């Protein structure tokens, strides 16, 4: 029974993630003053990719890369509560389990892309890992005051203890919330932080030798990744009290990221990392100091 519920959440999140991706393309198009593809475009893309007859692969590790990436993000999803009413395996693991499982996906992808024997892929991965030096620390420091304030390291407990609208942690710690929002933008890989993919510079980076079903698995990875990453932010700062509010919150945050993505160019990789050590670092440090001195 439990397994059926988990499988249900998994399928729901995948479908909604693909829907978000389609709506994102529509929103981007409207900002560009054009019509854009239909909102269900991402489903068509994934179906087309899985219907490819014969694709090239560079070996076992290369083929397993997207498989491990998808497995990693799915496993992370199982530990991420979808708002208060929809606990998954939350009670068996807390924030650090989620943070470390979030790395399994990119690591598997990195191993597979490295085996592509194409320097573009490795450059993309090197950039992705270096960008982590920027946004991961900001994200962690942004969520710290909230967790210590409620005295727990479990994401579900933070949601429960926050309660409804006026008591949101994002309003209590606004500077941390802003810093976390900027870090989330890097985590999602939207411009100006999409150096790892960078289609014009490094021929789409790690995905350069992936076609057909591999690319399909990577699209599914991206879909679930959107929900998990924005979900982490929403759960910590805006404690959604039921699953509907959860998806509404992730949708709004993701659309904010998409709007910024449509308007901005891309930083150079060292500019991006140094940017994170500038203003966002100051914001989250002020947030932590706010926890110490003015609760």
């Amino acid at each position, binding site marked *: 029974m439990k397994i059926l519920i988990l499988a249900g959440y998994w399928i729901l999140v995948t479908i909604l993630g693909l829907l978000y991706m389609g709506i994102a393309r529509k929103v981007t198009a409207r900002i560009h003053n054009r019509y854009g593809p239909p909102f269900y475009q991402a489903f068509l893309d994934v179906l087309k990719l899985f219907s*490819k007859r014969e694709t090239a692969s560079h070996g076992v590790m290369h083929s397993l890369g997207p498989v491990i990436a998808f497995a990693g993000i799915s496993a992370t999803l199982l530990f991420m509560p979808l708002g208060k009413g929809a606990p998954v395996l939350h009670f068996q693991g807390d924030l650090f389990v989620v943070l470390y499982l979030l790395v399994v996906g990119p690591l598997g992808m990195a191993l597979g892309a490295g085996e592509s024997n194409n320097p573009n892929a490795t450059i993309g991965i090197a950039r992705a890992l270096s960008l982590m030096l920027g946004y991961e620390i900001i994200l962690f420091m942004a969520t710290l005051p909230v967790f210590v304030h409620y005295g727990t390291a479990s994401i579900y407990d933070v949601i429960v203890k926050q309660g409804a609208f006026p008591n949101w942690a994002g309003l209590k710690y606004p500077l941390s919330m802003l810093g976390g929002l900027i870090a989330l933008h890097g985590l999602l890989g939207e411009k100006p932080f999409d150096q790892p993919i960078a289609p014009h510079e490094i021929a789409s980076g790690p995905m350069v030798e992936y076609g057909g079903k591999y690319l399909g698995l990577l699209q599914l990875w991206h879909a679930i990744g959107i929900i998990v990453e924005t979900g982490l932010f929403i759960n910590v700062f805006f404690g959604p009290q039921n699953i509907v509010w959860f998806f509404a919150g992730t949708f709004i945050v993701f659309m904010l990221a998409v709007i910024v993505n449509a308007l901005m160019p891309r930083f150079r990789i060292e500019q991006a990392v140094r940017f994170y050590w500038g203003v966002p670092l100051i914001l989250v440090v002020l947030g932590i100091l706010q926890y110490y001195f003015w609760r």
Partner: protein
Amino acid sequence: MGLFKISQGRSLWMVHFCTGCGAVEMPPTMTSRFDMERFGIAPMATPRQADVLLITGYLTVKTLKRVIMVYEQMPTPRYVIGFGSCTVNGGIYWDSYNVIKNLDLYIPVDLYIFGCMPRPESIIDAFIKLRKMIEEGKANKWKDYIERYDWYKQNQAKLFDINKWRVQK
């Protein structure tokens, strides 16, 4: 499998490979005024990720070698669109020693667009025709390349060294 055919037709990804001067009509088609993305068509960086190869404009022997490499790297099912009058019969370069006049001998072409250059409306019209062909199951020229592989290679061999310019399998 009808669903797969519909999804293949409504989500065509093209290789962003500008082979000739006809490629100057691609940016207007991609951008806001004529917007081909609303039909699900998007440019992709590498042939591994793409379904459609556009031969935009005249094709010289030098470019044909690279086109063969790119075409063979694409995953099946794959489609080729000949873009512009030069692909139909050589166009304004009909008397050049270097330009390919009959594209069908070297790679299987599903669709030709005439014009020098074709306007974005023609290009979008061609893509919609291609979509209809895919949904009806008529866009099968890629199977022809696999079945008559030796015949195509024989034709290519008259122009260049086919042992070098091919995807080694």
